[in-house]
């Protein structure tokens, strides 16, 4: 759909003169011969985006075929009711996979904070970890 800039601005309650500056700048960049007598001049806009960081791909940890007789940590990152959510998940394992041992831990500090001490414990004593859960 083509949009009439003047009408768009008027619909927004703004003066079309607002963009006069950009047009003036734009005209300075125009190749008038290419544009032709009646064509609206073309201009070049710069990309406003910053620089995202490079991504280092991380492999998933090796899996094992079964959870039988394994210890699973359940890490609550601290959102409301996460503890109850994991209580019910522990109940599910007790009723459905009784050989699985589950250990509940609430991550230290506020939800965005790191907890290296807990991560060390989980890696030492656990076979796997379930982390959650959000609002």
């Amino acid at each position, binding site marked *: 759909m083509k*949009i009439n*800039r003047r009408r*768009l*601005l008027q619909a*927004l309650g703004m003066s079309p003169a*607002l*963009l006069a*500056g*950009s047009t003036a*700048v*734009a005209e*300075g*960049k125009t190749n008038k011969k290419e544009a032709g007598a009646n064509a*609206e001049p*073309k*201009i*070049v*806009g*710069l*990309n406003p*985006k*910053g*620089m*995202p*960081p*490079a*991504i*280092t*791909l*991380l*492999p*998933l*940890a090796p*899996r094992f*075929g079964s959870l039988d007789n394994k210890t699973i940590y359940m890490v609550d990152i*601290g*959102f*409301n*009711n996460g503890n*109850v*959510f994991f*209580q*019910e*998940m522990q109940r*599910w394992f007790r009723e459905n*996979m009784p050989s699985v041992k589950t250990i509940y831990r609430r991550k*230290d*500090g*506020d939800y*965005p904070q790191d907890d290296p001490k807990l991560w060390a414990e*989980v*890696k030492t004593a656990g*076979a*796997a*970890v*379930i*982390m*959650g*859960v*959000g609002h």
Partner: protein
Amino acid sequence: MGIPTSPVVTVAFKQECKTNAAKRGMPRLRLVFSPHPVWGKSPEQLWGYMNGPDPATQKPMMQEVINALTMPLTAADTKTGKETPSVGPPTFEPDTAKNLQEFYRNNGYTDFLPIIIPTEEAVDEMLKGTSHHPDELVGKLAAGGGTEAFAAWTFTVRHAAINAVMAGAKPEHLPVILAIASSGVISLISSTNDLAYGALVNGPIRNKLNMNYGIGALGPFAHANAAIGRAWTLVSKNLGNAGIPGETYMGDMGNTLNYLNLIMAENEEASPWEPFDVQHGFKKEENVVSMFSGLSVSAGQVGKGSGVGGTPHFDQQYVDLFYNFTGFFGALLLCEPICANSLKEQGYDTKEKLIDYFYKNATQTAKEYRDRNWSYLFEYGQALKGVEPFATWYKLPDDAVIPKFPHPNRISVVVIGGSTDPVSQVANFSYGKSVSIDKWM
């Protein structure tokens, strides 16, 4: 983590988690989703979640958890190496101004209002506003603010200038925009809370830029206030990759302040007190911008005791206005000059004395404190670690009376306004940091 891991997240965050995991180098992370929300649900309801489907796949949720932890890895799951994300070419294909308006808008580069197209000439002109090299790195911005939830992007002086042009700023505004951008404070944070951000300018630059700190100081009555505020929003979107709903922005209903942000200049001339930046260690002749974050601004009511023949008690009135505030977000009193001078006549000869009054008189019960979601979310974890006053507040009896704010430094006072009516405003905003503008001249 080094061992099989299954993040379980409520489905409202599906896209945010998938995108963020990929940008953190784990595009194949085995995410499992539960129904949303968990908050407020009974054990019986959550038991139902355990026995129901993952809403993203419609397969049994707990089976998805087990699969995530046990299913063999594919070659794609173990891929390593580095990837450099692209944000597109440095310049776009030549087009008409009208088409470029749509192009910038449709690609998420704008705030959905018309922009000034950032041509090379316009950006070069903008760059005359600073002595810094266009390629100099300014800083980092991340959609999660200081939480490290999202990887930070970097940007140069030129990047900031491009966004300043788009916002309609003038070259003389650029040092303030650069100072704000360099602070690392993003104005569109990923949080589910509808957060808003503020920037307070102190120093002679307020007058040099014709910033409005008088009549209508918070309204649309000054180019500098408007352009600086708008530029901050565009900087946040384009230089920090913030503000993509469902991906890097999760604010439930958003915040109208996010359009231009709470841009303030202190009315130092009408204030009976030290300027805000001087309170924080700067000299009066320095140009400084101070950063705030919070939720909203509330219009004040005329002071207690201000009826016919009465004596206004603005101090008590402001305490009343703090009633629904949480200590976590703090309080920012936007003190109208008549009120400020009246308070000084009543004995508050420094802002600190007024803040001390607020700290001692704005109170709550321990139960009211503990019943707040934000107390649990942001401070209960600290309480468990023994951080005061939260550790004590979580042990007190329900009816114990405690301060509303955990520390006086959560309360700020700024004088602003045009002395037409003794009505101040309050914002549940807390002060973060102050940054030199002079550095970016």
